């Protein structure tokens, strides 16, 4: 932060001020000390032949030369190369980056574009037939695919423009013998700083890419899955086939393609993770915020209830509820969501309690702000960061829990593919057909790992104490 600390402007002492205390007009104070301002300006007037050394702080009211330089540098000086790059990118996203000398980003865009094109190729049958016999699933998949393509194309174009500007700025700065690191970043919010930190965290970025890919796979399952995940094949000819060109990850005992089942299973796992955590977060934040802000008896009641829910072994509770009712996707989501909120509630309450004592909340009260304004504008945005982190880590957790339930047969019921049931199926023939349990297991590991990487990255990026 120190590198952006700017000069504190001295008021000067300003003797002989033009006295008009009665007028009460808010006049700039600097006018009151004309000699001080003039003196300072005079002191820094560059003498002919002597280059004025760089000053770190901007002078009062006048943009520094560094500011001006930064302003001119934003217009790329060599339009030729970047024009060609833009044209190339418009045809093939990422190719322009290669031309401008950022191969890593270029490769990433090219790869993303390629993967989406591959998805079109894989799912061409479904895409072409969607107008006649398309189910809702197919439509969702195709729209997702289209949006994905659009996002990559726009992202590449935008990133290219940014890269060109950055490149130009660096060259300009080098010409001027200036350090490119010192640039006036105006209005740098906590969120944009967090984003910058997140972008520098490679494991977290890998996690984020994995998460995005997983969600894309889940949405585009009908296009990507080579076979029907549920229909059983000829048991004698297609049961327990090892991984091969036809069945990339092999088949199970009923001759169903493991890969297709994993792809469809991703929908179940991710949906459960996302929705259950959303329920938990909303409920938990609400209860926690109410308890923390109102305090007193309300707080005591809510927190004792929270303690009670927390004290009950969750797995046993889940098994009990599921044993009482017919297991279904909705029930499992609800149960997982409704048993997970206490953690969030405690977290949010703690944050609110400490925030409530912060001076800026006091200041807001002193300035005459109403209660709801304080909660909505001042408390919630500051509680959000830890909640987002908790939510991300929570999704990974929930996915494991659901897999565990399904593995025990208490979760998603066959033949619906869920990663937990898939592993459970494979258990029967672990030696003879290792692929049946291994690949779904790997899918769970990768997914949970991805969410945890993102969660850790978010925590590091959002927690100011982790930076400094």
């Amino acid at each position, binding site marked *: *932060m120190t590198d*952006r*600390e*700017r000069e*504190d*402007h*001295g*008021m000067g*002492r*300003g003797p002989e001020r033009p006295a008009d*205390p009665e007028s*009460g007009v*808010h*006049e*700039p*104070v*600097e006018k*009151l000390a004309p000699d001080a301002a003039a003196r300072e300006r005079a002191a820094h007037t560059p003498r002919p032949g002597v280059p004025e050394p760089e000053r770190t702080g*901007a002078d*009062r*009211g006048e943009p520094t030369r560094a500011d001006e330089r930064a302003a001119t540098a934003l217009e790329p000086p060599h339009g030729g190369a970047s024009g060609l790059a833009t044209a190339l990118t418009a045809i093939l996203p990422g190719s322009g980056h290669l031309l401008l000398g950022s191969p890593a980003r270029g490769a990433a865009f090219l790869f993303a574009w390629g993967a989406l094109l591959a998805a079109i190729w894989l799912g061409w049958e479904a895409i072409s037939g969607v107008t006649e016999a398309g189910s809702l699933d197919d439509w969702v998949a195709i729209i997702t695919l289209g949006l994905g393509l659009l996002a990559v194309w726009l992202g590449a174009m935008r990133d290219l423009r940014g890269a060109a500007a950055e490149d130009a700025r660096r060259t300009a700065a080098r010409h001027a013998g200036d350090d490119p690191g010192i640039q006036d970043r*105006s*209005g*740098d*919010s*906590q*969120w944009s700083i967090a984003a910058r930190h997140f972008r520098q965290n490679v494991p977290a970025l890998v996690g984020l890419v994995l998460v995005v890919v997983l969600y894309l796979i889940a949405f585009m399952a009908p296009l990507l899955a080579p076979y029907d995940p549920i229909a059983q094949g000829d048991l004698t000819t297609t049961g327990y086939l090892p991984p091969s060109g036809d069945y990339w990850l092999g088949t199970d005992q009923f001759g169903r393609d493991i890969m297709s089942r994993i792809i469809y299973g991703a929908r179940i796992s991710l949906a459960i993770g996302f929705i259950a955590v959303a329920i938990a977060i909303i409920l938990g934040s609400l209860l926690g915020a109410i308890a923390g802000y109102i305090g007193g008896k309300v707080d005591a009641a809510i927190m004792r209830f929270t303690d009670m829910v927390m004290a009950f072994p969750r797995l046993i509770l889940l098994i009990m509820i599921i044993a009482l009712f017919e297991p279904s996707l909705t029930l499992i989501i609800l149960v997982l969501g409704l048993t997970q909120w206490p953690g969030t509630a405690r977290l949010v309450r703690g944050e609110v309690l400490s925030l409530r004592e*912060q*001076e*800026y909340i*006091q*200041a*807001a*009260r*002193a*300035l*005459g*702000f*109403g209660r709801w*304004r304080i909660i909505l*504008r*001042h408390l919630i*945005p*500051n509680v959000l960061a830890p909640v987002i982190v908790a939510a991300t880590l929570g999704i990974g957790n929930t996915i494991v829990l659901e897999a565990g339930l399904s593995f025990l047969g208490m979760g998603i019921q066959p033949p619906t593919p869920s990663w937990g049931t898939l592993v459970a199926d494979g258990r029967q023939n672990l030696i003879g057909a290792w692929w049946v349990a291994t690949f779904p297991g790997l899918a769970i590991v990768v997914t949970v790992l991805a969410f945890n990487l993102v969660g850790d990255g978010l925590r590091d990026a959002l927690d*100011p104490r982790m930076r400094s």
Partner: protein
Amino acid sequence: MSELPVADVLAAEPDEETTLPPSKGDSDLGGRTLEEVDPGDALVHVRGLKKHFPLRGGFLSRIQGHVKAVDGVTFWVGKGETLGLVGESGSGKSTTGRAILRLIEPTEGTVVFAGQDVTAMDAEDLQALRRQAQIIFQDPFASLNPRMTVGDAIREVLKVHGLARGEGADARVRELLRLVGLRPEYASRYPHEFSGGQRQRIGIARALSVEPEFIVCDEPVSALDVSVQAQVVNLLEELQQRLGLAFLFIAHDLSVVEHVSDRVAVMYLGRIVETADAEQLTRSPKHPYTRALLSAVPVPEPGRKRERIVLPGDVPSPIDPPSGCPFHPRCPHPLKDQDCARTVPPLAEKAPGQFAACIKEPAYVAPTGS
């Protein structure tokens, strides 16, 4: 050097009540008290202000006692005047400042602001009060919402009070920033992008946005470096002159308070022990605590060997303050005796316009009863 010499016990235990010498006679309980003085048309008049925080504990968080943070404080601040409020940590000076603005609900006493009783105000009146009385906090970073730009923070105040909107608000933000000596372009930046001194300027700009008449300055320069501290002190004084503001300037640093204030009140354990004109207080302090405080301020003048009064012990806990005069366990007054532990000293006039709560100092009697 294996045998270390044993030092004298510098800090005596503050349980001397029983060992105090018997009465030395000379207690003076007379003199006009501060409560009896009519301050005329003071902008803020605080009378008998108390704030007792309940101490909870045990199974059902029952009240087990009270922290008497502020225990009967009386003072006033005139229009365009600065009253300095000094005291060490735990003296209740910050609580006093916040209780006046009802940021903390006072337990007892009245606060009259421009003829209106603040303690009796409802939500609507309070909202109106917030336009006239403002506060600046010690930690300029903690008092700004880290997720709002400086401009947004000020614009929000203008909006809530219906002072300006849209273009008008933007113009006002620029004007306010310029007023406190910041570049108007800074409006789009976030608090963390500023240095301590600049943040304090932002805090001041925001407080000024409602055009208040009175500002509680709660340790506004304590967190700042010496040279920056001088900048902010000068800014406050300059603003006061131009805008006719009244300040309640709270600080633990006597030299700063003395510099900015017209009158000074010294607090100890929730009470005012002395109040007088700033110059008079420095020149001839009447209360032994004020004397010790003055002598303890290190002055950048080596060789000038002043007699330094080093007080023994620590400030006692406000949960269980000493009986009688709260200062008596640490008091170096030569006439200290049993009476000090028995009698709560009244804040009485010891010299014209100078009030001190010490029964061992002779009271001032006006030449002719008026």
